[in-house]
């Protein structure tokens, strides 16, 4: 059986809700069972990758270092919406990990090839 392509879409700010943290937990866990994961960071979701979080003052878990585990777990398809970065005046070099920037068209193409999509 061909492994399903699973896309995990991240659209929320990192600490106002646990969406980001639980999305990353899910991604790391799923990576042990599925080698065809793709991550998408769209809209405010890109703030999760903006380096330099310090959320302990607001009693939130500092989960950002776990993004470094993605490489270790062979999760390499990490797509960031170029337009979302531009709209928020964030440069690729401000991001914590290596990502692939995608324009609107490429984003649509990448989303369309996934067998299953999960949204956070």
């Amino acid at each position, binding site marked *: *059986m061909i492994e399903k392509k699973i896309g995990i879409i991240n659209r929320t700010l990192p600490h106002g809700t*646990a969406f980001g943290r639980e999305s990353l937990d899910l991604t790391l*866990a*799923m990576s*042990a*069972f*599925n080698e065809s994961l793709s991550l998408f960071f769209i809209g405010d979701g890109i703030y999760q990758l903006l380096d330099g979080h310090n959320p302990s003052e607001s009693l939130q878990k500092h989960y950002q270092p776990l993004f470094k585990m993605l490489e270790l777990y062979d999760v390499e398809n990490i797509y960031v919406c170029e337009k979302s970065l531009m709209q928020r005046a964030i440069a690729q070099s401000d991001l914590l990990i290596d990502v692939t920037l995608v324009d609107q068209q490429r984003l649509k193409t990448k989303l369309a090839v996934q067998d*299953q999509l*999960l*949204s956070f």
Partner: protein
Amino acid sequence: MAIDSMKIAVLVSSAPYGSQGASSAYQFCASAVQAGHKIVGVFFYQEGVLNASQLVSPATDEVNLPDFWAKLAIQYQFPLEVCVSASLRRGIVNETEAQQLSLNQFNLKAPFVLSGLGQLAELSAGADKLVQFL
């Protein structure tokens, strides 16, 4: 009218009360089985784990969604899997965890079971469709 029967896995990410996602998920499952599809399992994650609480006690003229889930799952024999780490953070505990954590109570409703995210991966792999309710 011949519709090919599909194997469907469902991911529930929202609480039994306060938002509509879990109610929609339940209605989706009920409709799917009535239409002849197979629910291979429902996985509860994020706020969705609160669906597994046996302490949910709405007024008698309101819907008790955990009860609805339990009845449907028993009738159509599909598992209700609840992410253990998301559960423990939100105070959903089964008897084994309660003992290990030296807690006086547990509140996981039968037939919900605590399981890991690996189980979601398994459901995803074995299903024709994976449907998430936020």
